[in-house]
């Protein structure tokens, strides 16, 4: 197999109303085993996937938001969240759950996986990929 490719998973849809967010996460988890260079983009309604304190008891749908916190264990550590998308939706970065990973290159220091980026930075990230998978 050739060297690692850059994979970007683009998340533009809200959770629960449709299954795309959950099934996207399932791809990310499986894909982690392939040791590619993986990034996740959250923009537009996709930023809603990361809100804290999701409680799905009343709607009877499985709450998959804790799974995002496990991504670090799969070495998926680059979650880019678009600032403008948050603002338009009345959200602050503090409305998102904390997602951490241990950086093996920096004495296993705990670092945040979520990076808030501007729309223009998001465009740069998108244009620097080999494979873009949209859900």
């Amino acid at each position: 197999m050739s060297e690692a490719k850059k994979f970007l998973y683009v998340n533009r849809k809200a959770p629960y109303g449709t299954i795309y967010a959950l099934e996207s996460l399932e791809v990310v988890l499986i894909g982690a085993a392939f040791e590619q260079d993986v990034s996740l983009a959250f923009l537009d309604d996709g930023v809603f996937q990361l809100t804290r304190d999701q409680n799905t008891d009343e709607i009877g749908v499985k709450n998959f938001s804790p799974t995002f916190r496990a991504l670090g264990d799969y070495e998926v550590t680059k979650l880019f969240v678009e600032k403008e998308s948050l603002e338009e939706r009345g959200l602050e970065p503090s409305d998102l759950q904390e997602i951490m990973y241990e950086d093996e290159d920096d004495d296993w220091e705990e670092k945040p996986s979520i990076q808030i980026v501007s729309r223009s930075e998001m465009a740069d990230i998108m244009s620097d990929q080999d494979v873009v998978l949209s859900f």
Partner: protein
Amino acid sequence: MKFGIVVSEGPYTHQAADTAYHFAKAALDKGHEVPRVFFYHDGVNVATNLSVPPQDERQIQKNWTALAKANDIDMVVCIAAAQRRGILDENEAKRQGKDASNLAEGFRISGLGQLIEMGIECDRTVTFGD
């Protein structure tokens, strides 16, 4: 009051079938009647008995089947929509020369006239879709 319910999207992919289920249950709990639920568009896919979701997810088809049985709900799947999408009862499978069928218990296949009839005979018609 009589509530007629339309489900227009498939299970798991959209929340519509879930919301419709919770709505029907709440209506029945309040003493209303739900004489019929009509499954149209991708909603017909709710009626497949071949769905095997993970154990920790809700069982959408089984929940509907149980609710209908307990409350005598007529669950109608549109025949034209079902044929396009591959939902067949035994008779239809035979007629079409297919050696398998997949319509779950509690559902029946019929025509769009049942949707109009529901609209005429119910006090309220509520659509759940996307």
